[in-house]
């Protein structure tokens, strides 16, 4: 298989299949429901059941569309290939796609992490010949917390802040991190308010078995005594508040101290829905792939590090250019 790395996404010409396309195409695989991966209205969309459910909320159908739900680990036949969705741990429903075609196995990870998430399925590392993997945090300065360490940091920060009579505010993305933080707080029995942008996906998480007991909708007028789970864009509201609000930023970027200036948060909790540097190395080496293409983030430096470890790794853009020359 010769994947092509194009502006509109990754394209597999042999199967006429697009991976996470950014504009409308006939047939698409959607790795997870974040809008930089799941966008547009396609003819046929493959994805896991959870991903497609959220995708429908975010991109309601405007015309005829076929949604092909896949179960983890259950292969389907498609144009002479075998497609299997494997858990990727990133957010609820996030999946890698394994494609077996003419004796070759290719895996596209989408966004992925190896550490078990606070909410979502734990990643399965599978063998392949060729790997397309993300490298958002592909520099050796990024080291993240395990699930349980993150849970304890989140809960401790909330409790200590509340004990001081101040308001703990958590900045987390609308889909994924927001629900993970809220779930950890609710499980710990902390009074929690959740902003609507995050709360709207809670039913999907509840369907998957995660409990959010006793949460209330976010209300700007009643902050006291309640942990707030809101989106990063809302930080200025809390900075301007007359209440003593202490802001925590739960993110991979929080691994670096300069995230304080970036996010406006004083407390940094380096927990991510992406793999950190060591996880990326472990993942790539675990697949046994001979050829690795890197997409997103620090593609060039990580490719060089992998090449130094004897793996034929390339930053996707450079790889695309080379293949045009070869052809």
């Amino acid at each position, binding site marked *: 298989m010769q994947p092509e790395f194009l502006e509109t996404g990754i394209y597999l010409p042999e199967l006429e299949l697009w991976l996470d396309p950014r504009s409308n195409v006939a047939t698409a695989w959607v790795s997870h429901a974040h809008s930089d991966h799941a966008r547009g209205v396609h003819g046929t969309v493959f994805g896991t059941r959870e991903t497609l459910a959220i995708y429908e909320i975010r991109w309601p159908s405007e015309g005829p569309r076929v949604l092909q739900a896949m179960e983890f680990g259950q292969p389907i036949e498609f144009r002479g290939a075998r497609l299997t969705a494997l858990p990727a741990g990133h957010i609820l429903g996030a999946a890698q796609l394994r494609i077996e075609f003419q004796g070759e196995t290719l895996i596209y990870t989408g966004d992925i992490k190896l550490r078990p998430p606070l909410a979502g399925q734990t990643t399965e590392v599978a063998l392949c010949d060729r790997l397309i993997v993300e490298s958002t945090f592909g520099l050796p300065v990024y*080291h993240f917390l395990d699930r349980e360490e993150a849970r304890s940091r989140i809960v401790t920060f909330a409790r200590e802040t509340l004990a001081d009579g101040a308001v703990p505010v958590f900045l987390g993305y609308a889909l994924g991190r927001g629900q993970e933080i809220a779930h950890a707080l609710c499980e710990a029995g902390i009074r929690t308010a959740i902003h609507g942008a995050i709360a709207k996906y809670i039913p999907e998480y509840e369907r998957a078995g995660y409990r959010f007991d006793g949460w209330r909708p976010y209300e700007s007028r009643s902050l006291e005594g309640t942990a707030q789970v809101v989106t990063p864009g809302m930080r200025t509201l809390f900075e301007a508040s007359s209440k003593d609000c*202490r802001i925590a930023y739960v993110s991979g970027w929080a691994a*670096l101290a300069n995230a*304080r*200036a970036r996010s406006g948060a004083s407390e940094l909790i380096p927990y991510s829905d992406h793999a950190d540097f060591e996880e990326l190395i472990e993942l790539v080496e675990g697949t046994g792939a001979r050829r690795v293409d890197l997409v997103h983030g620090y593609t060039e430096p990580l490719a*060089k590090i992998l090449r130094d470890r004897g793996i034929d790794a390339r930053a996707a853009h450079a790889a695309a250019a080379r293949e045009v020359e070869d052809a």
Partner: protein
Amino acid sequence: MDRLSDLAERVASTNSRNRKIALVAGYLRSLPPDQAALAVQFLRTIPVEGAKLSVGGTLLRDAIVQASGWDLELVRLCAREVGDTGETAGHLMFGRTEGRALQLSEAASIYQRLAMARRTALKLAILVETFKRYRPLTLRYFVKVISGNLRIGLQDKMVREAVEAAGLSLPGLDARLFDPFEFMLAKPLEQAPEIANAQDWRVEDKYDGIRAQGHFRHGEARIFTRGMNDATASFPEIVSELAALPGDGVIDGEVLAWRDGRALSFQMLQQRIARKTVTAKMLAELPVRFIGYDLLWRDGESLTHHPLEERRKRLEQSWPLVSPQSRLASSGDIETLFSEARARGNEGLILKRAGSLYETGKRSGAWIKVKRPYGSLDVVVTAAEQGHGRRATVLSDYTFAVRDGDTFVNVGKAYSGLTDAEIRELTRIFRTLTTGRYGRVSLVKPEVVLEVAFDGVQKSPRHKSGYALRFPRILQWRKDKTVDGIDGIEQVRALYEASLAP
């Protein structure tokens, strides 16, 4: 050192000044006195009392390369993303150290060995050995003490308050002969509170030279500038005069080019300091004098906590050339006194409140400066550079240009004057205007117009225009103006010519 590093992380995680001080005080209280003294020293980023380590960014980076095994190119890239050498060292040594505990006294002896080591190779070996041995978070702060900024929002003054709150008395905490004090600075009149009681204020001329500190003890003397640089070699005539004084002391004052009993313009002084070595000819043609403003230390005792009048009296007893001081009769006199100071060739006035203390490192309301900006110009930004520390992720330093016919020529670079929000917005704009990148610097299409104020114009070989603005600061971002409306090189040239006139 492990506990100090944990403490520093907690201090960084709170925005509240009081909580930062309480955290430090609590930590200091828990230590035996000798350990507390070391902890305070390290929190003030002094690795060794009274000695220089001579360990710079390049050496630290080389040590990270050797200890971590990552190549230099990657280490550089990481350092750029992180924006702090100590933090980079900690992250890159993650999982690659023995993780041993480091006592404060052990850290002190490593710093001591670094200070004693003459050869760079030996310093490097000591650093590499240290990096491989201790916990990554501890290494982060071990290095920050060397590079001189912990970046945890803990100023010297707060450490002092914590020491007080912990009930400790550490002799010599703010007394360091031959180690510069942080200068007390004046607030501009516009930002100062109303001068209600004129009789409470003393007035001096504001001289246009180089603010400096003269340290002396028994035949030895050194001079430090505002940037805490050692300028001893540049001003031998002042050094010998200081060294001849009895006892020991620290004088805060201004270095001025001096002829016929009066100060010359900064442009003249500029010619003197442009040269690395001072020739006999220059000593004769452009002599310098050191005019005393204040006395911070005398005969084994710090005077910073003594009132203005006492410091002034002892300054007059110690040093022959002292800035003349008078009493302010009414606030209406400021205008007249300002004009007189300008007529004497000086920059303006400094008002000092009676009874005030010397507040090191502070821009205090007890000192007020009266000066007018020399001028302002509308300029266009041609390059934007990534900042450091909390500004590491934004483009915060701007090189700017004026029009010269059909092209633009650079006349300076400014860092300050915009809000964080404006800097973030400009960063987004500059990213779309970028035409090329050289490391931290992005060349940008000349579209963003700024109004900059400055204190003078000087000749500069660095800029193609041949001129550089002195102390440029951004007054405002002129969103209303396009590049067609900016000033030209003619205005700059005219301002320079005017400054040469007697």
